[in-house]
């Protein structure tokens, strides 16, 4: 019973991390039609900023709060300078963002060297439930993920900002005719997606420690999750991330980890092949 509880917690916690990472990826892919290969590096930057704050003697919380804003600002600038040119061509966008990611990743590698740098958990210790202990920080990540998810949903579905964002992305010319500044909305959407990646990086760095290929590790899982969930809505990628995250964490408990690892990808690709629209089809929030 205790074991099952620990397993369930592990699965839930990993699922939450994947959801957190996919949120930004999904918003950019669904709303803008761009599969952002640099998203993993935005996660890496978030992690790096948190590490930097810690290394400079600031409280880790400060780094974690700063990370989404810094990465979001960077995303806004990059969108205006570079990403904007790619909207018409999805493949070129992949290559361009890949190049951007390469630049960011290698810069960070140059800054930190080939090391694995650890950042302590801002909330240490464990929560005891009966005889079992669960990591307090991983529990916090689950809670924050739920809050961020709810926040994003409300932002997109209930605020006038979300309405304008969706209008722009669904029908740009009509949105322009209605007096919405579409370039600004594109920039804001991309910045928002980047900021979410920065936040994800900041939150997971105590769990995975900081190394240059940190973002790459999650990028492909993130893409697969977005495709499984279905591009075009906010809920789709989140659902996909839940499924992929849960599967990747749950399967190693019942079979050899190598087989499980590969099986998740194979299952996902087969699923997408036969249901290209994903779990949740259609536009909307």
């Amino acid at each position, binding site marked *: 019973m205790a074991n099952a509880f620990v397993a369930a917690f592990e699965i839930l916690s990993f699922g939450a991390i994947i959801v957190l990472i996919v949120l930004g990826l999904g918003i950019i892919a669904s709303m803008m039609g761009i599969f952002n290969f640099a998203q993993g590096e935005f996660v890496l930057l978030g992690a790096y900023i948190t590490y930097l704050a810690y290394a400079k003697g600031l409280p880790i919380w400060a780094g974690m709060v700063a990370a989404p804003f810094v990465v979001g600002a960077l995303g806004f600038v990059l969108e205006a300078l570079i990403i904007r040119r790619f909207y018409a061509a999805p493949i*070129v966008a992949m*290559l*361009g963002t*890949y*190049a951007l990611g390469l630049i960011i990743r290698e810069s960070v590698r140059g800054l930190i060297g080939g090391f694995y740098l650890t950042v302590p958990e801002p909330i240490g210790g464990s929560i005891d439930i009966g005889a079992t202990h669960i990591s307090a920080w991983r529990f916090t990540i689950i809670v924050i993920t739920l809050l961020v998810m709810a926040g994003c949903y409300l932002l997109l579905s209930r605020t006038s900002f979300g309405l304008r964002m969706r209008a722009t992305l669904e029908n740009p010319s009509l949105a322009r005719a209605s007096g919405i500044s579409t370039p600004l909305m594109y920039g804001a959407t991309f910045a928002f997606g980047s900021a979410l990646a920065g936040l994800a990086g900041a939150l997971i760095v105590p769990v995975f420690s900081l190394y240059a290929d940190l973002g790459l590790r999650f990028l492909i899982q993130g893409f697969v999750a977005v495709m499984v969930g279905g591009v075009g809505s906010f809920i789709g990628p989140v659902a996909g991330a839940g499924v992929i995250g849960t599967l990747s964490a749950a399967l190693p408990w019942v079979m050899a980890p190598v087989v499980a690892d590969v099986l998740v990808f194979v299952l996902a690709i087969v699923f997408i092949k036969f249901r290209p629209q994903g779990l949740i089809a259609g536009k909307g929030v």
Partner: protein
Amino acid sequence: MPKSMSVVREAIAGDEADDAMAERVAAGQAKEQVKAGRKVLPIVEGVVLVAALLAPLVLQDYLTVFATRVIILALFALSFDLVWGYAGIMSFGQALFFGSAGYGVALLARDLDITNILLVLPAGTIIGLTFALLLGGFLLLGRHPSSVIFVSLGTLTGSYAADRLARGWYYLGGQNGIPSIAPMSLGGYEFTEGPAFYYLVLGILVVVYLLCRFLVRSQFGLALAGLRENEQRIAFFGYKAQHLKAIIFAIGGAIAGLAGSLYAFHEGFVWPNMVGVVVSTQVVLYVLFGGSGTLIGAVIGTVIVEGVSFWLSDNYREIWPIILGLLLLLVILFRPLGLISFVLGERERVGSFGARPKETERKTEKQTEKEKRNAAP
């Protein structure tokens, strides 16, 4: 099939004309040369070939070994160029075929003691072909045509999954891969690193290059070009667009397999990165740099990227990947046709296919060549 060819040709000519308009300012000089009737492509190819033939004579031994590796990678780049530059299939998983063939021949050498060049190279090619047929068949064929995004992410995922599998599978050597593979042999002769291996690889590259050149200039190549420019239109003409794609994907896989088996024997070991995302994206870099859609562009791109990286790796090892990323970004933004477009005009890049219909013939070198051919027998 040939009946609709002229229609396809016109359709492509229309699309290309639009592109040419946009490209005119940038490639002005190259255009002038084409107008004057001079062909740049054979000159470029000739220069590259001569340089490649002379290289081992002037290079030191360790540089010849490096040059051999570059030639093998150029062969690999050719396979990607065929798939992306000519058929417009974004394969982010080309290393899957390269690496699995490498692993395949390494296992042949390790477990069965088969190193005969006449067996291992065909074996590697067939492994690449088989994997490409399976993956390509699954991703590309089916009742509904797959989206470009699905194909590119599907190949990327395949490559990533293969990497993970190779890392975790004890039989394949896990993280360390398979070390110290015996050298390739022919009769009693063993191909070890050096000029002999270099010329072997160069010979293979030239043969494959010529085959590819024939392929992309044939009627099949014309259908491919149509596919790349406007897939829907080609489908409306009655072509089975998905089948064409699957065929070219399989050919690309076979070439990648050939390159992978040569690479495994040249380096003497295989390791998980060879099937993984790193090598898959590396080959994309080569081709984008050199110029996709021209075969020689893939070769030149490989030589430049590998050469500069080798040259800089002593002093600027950390900075080089950043410079590479910046250059790649600049190429994508301002030179989407790659470095080759500095010397090669748009019209020549697109080229002509098979025999031209009579009414569109003009007094060009093409025609004089044709007359010579007709006069010959």
